[in-house]
């Protein structure tokens, strides 16, 4: 059952990834990319790496994706269609993608390449939300209180950055207005 779910998830993620790469619409591509990340999150949960999953959600869905969306919207205007890539580019991209893939495949197929340590996380396959919450706020050595708090700072920084880029034109104009006043040299 879990195997079936795993392959299903992988198929969905692959589909999103293909859309993200091939879509001519930038917005759709970004959304599809978010889908891929979401799939990864579920995969992490399924594997019991709940902390990594959480980080993935908070950082990528929460921060980076929003930042990317802002950046896409604000720098290029809405609904930008991209030109069709040339065949050479596609072949180049495929080759570039294939080479690291070959490495991962090679590693996976190699005999005896299993993860040696079954961590505590692996013992409880699906983590409960409660345990995650407790662990996030646990100041002890195996808790993640500090990174949890830091993630909020990261999100704030991403928001500030996005807003700063979005409002820069207007601000520049007001700045000009201010600067028509005579200012002495302070540097």
């Amino acid at each position, binding site marked *: 059952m879990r195997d079936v779910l795993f392959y299903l998830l992988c198929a969905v993620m692959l589909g999103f990834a293909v859309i993200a790469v091939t879509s001519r619409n930038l917005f759709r591509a970004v959304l599809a990319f978010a889908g891929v990340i979401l799939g990864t999150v579920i995969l992490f949960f399924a594997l019991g790496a709940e902390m*990594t999953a959480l980080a993935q959600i908070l950082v990528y869905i929460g921060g*980076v994706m929003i930042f*990317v969306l802002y950046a896409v919207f604000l720098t290029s205007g809405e609904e930008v269609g991209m030109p069709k890539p040339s065949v050479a580019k596609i072949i180049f991209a495929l080759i570039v993608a294939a080479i690291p893939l070959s490495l*991962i495949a090679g590693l996976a197929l190699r005999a005896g390449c299993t993860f040696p340590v079954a*961590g505590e996380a692996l013992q409880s396959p699906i983590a409960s939300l409660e345990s995650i919450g407790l662990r996030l706020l646990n100041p002890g050595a195996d808790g993640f209180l*500090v*990174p949890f708090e830091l993630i909020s700072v990261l999100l704030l920084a991403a928001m500030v*950055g996005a807003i700063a880029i979005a409002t820069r*034109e207007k601000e520049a104009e007001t700045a000009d207005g201010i600067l028509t006043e005579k200012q002495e040299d302070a*540097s």
Partner: protein
Amino acid sequence: MSTPFSTPFLSAFLPDLALLVLALVVLTTEIVFRKHQARWTARVAVAGLAAVLILLAALPLPSGGVAYAGYQVTRSVVVWKQLFALATLATILLSRSYFRNGHSLRGALANPGAFYGLLLFSTTGMFALVSARDLLTFYIGLELATLPLYALTALQPRNAGSIEAGSKYMLMGAFASALSLFGISFLYGAAGSLGFDALAKVASAQPSLSAQPFLLAGVLMLLGSLGFKLAMVPFQMWAPDVYEGAPTAVTAFLSTGSKAAAVAATTTLFLGPLNLPRIDLGAIFALAAVLSLLAGTLGAMRQSNLRRFIAYSSIAQAGYMLMAFTGGEGSEAAARIALQYNLLVYGTASFALFFVVSLVGRSAPETIPSLRGLSARSPALAALLALSLFSLIGIPPLAGFLGKFLLFAVAARNGHYTLIFIGALAVALSFYYYMRLLKEAYQPVQTAENRGAPASAVPLSPIRLSLAGKCAAALLAILLVVLGTCPGMLNFIASR
């Protein structure tokens, strides 16, 4: 583990918390001050950073350091934090004039609250990065240190280059970030935990590499991600483009503060839990060092754009610093001291260089020919430029020489003599490309006219420094000399 609000806890966390609070305060300073917003925001930020620096220097720390919730503060961590805070402080001082029109051909900066706030957020990320005791904190610190820089790079309105640089930096940064996440998940798989201690145990216990290729994959990916931040070959290609497009002050921060953070991160990981005896990381670092030296040297030789020149020079400097990671076991302390000393020295020289660039950039494009006649326009500035370049080359008694010598000494411990030879060759060649700047600065202007250079490209007006500018120039010059000649300097760092 210490309890919250006990003295050791406070002395460990207070500077970081103060910095965070400062970032939030700076974001809102604009609301309080309606006029001269940029100036007031800068003042608040400078005062706050000075307070953070004082806290870092003054707060007592138990000799073993303080650990709390996967966050650790030791003396060497405090030195790193002081370096970051100094770089941020210098960046803020450098950036002040860019908020006024007419101080750069590239247009004025806007939105001081966001600018300084983001800068301070980035510094907070660096603080977290060096204090991390697990990979998650490490990763988030790394992201927090980098993410604001994407926005800062793109923050120059009406400058297509700035936006292009910002988006390119972000794309590459996201790529590097994905690499590090991927790498961290491999390491998590190998160790079963995100903590550095567990990682160190697993890493040192591996009988051979063939048993643990996933560890290797994780290490390589993290190395790629950190290499990106370091601007180390072959992850350096973004650097010239981004350095060229970013606002000058941001470029200065990228080449000093951000580079220091990258070096600190690499030190934290690769001289810490991932100091793998059986994976020959020294060879990888040596190769990267050689390639960086080569690319930086060759790239810098034929540049006329000052920012791209600085980018290549910083790639070469990264190459020298990578030599500190080739020392192998037992060289950690020496490597750390060499790196911290080098970053301090390199940062001082870089800011002196950027100080000159910012003043020249007021009336001319930031290119090497624009430096022509600098000695006539302002002898003091030209002398400062000379000092900083000599320090970057490594001419004794300036500090750059001692820094390089220490790095070479670390590399020698593991018998990397070829690397030392190449490093020395790069030093010899660096003389050539740094001297190009100096030659231009001391070239009399009339010669340039005789040779048919366009008159408009040669601004002749003398550069007058305000009192603050004079103080800054004098301070930088004194630092450049004192860092190298003051005998106790190194011991001071080493004792921390």
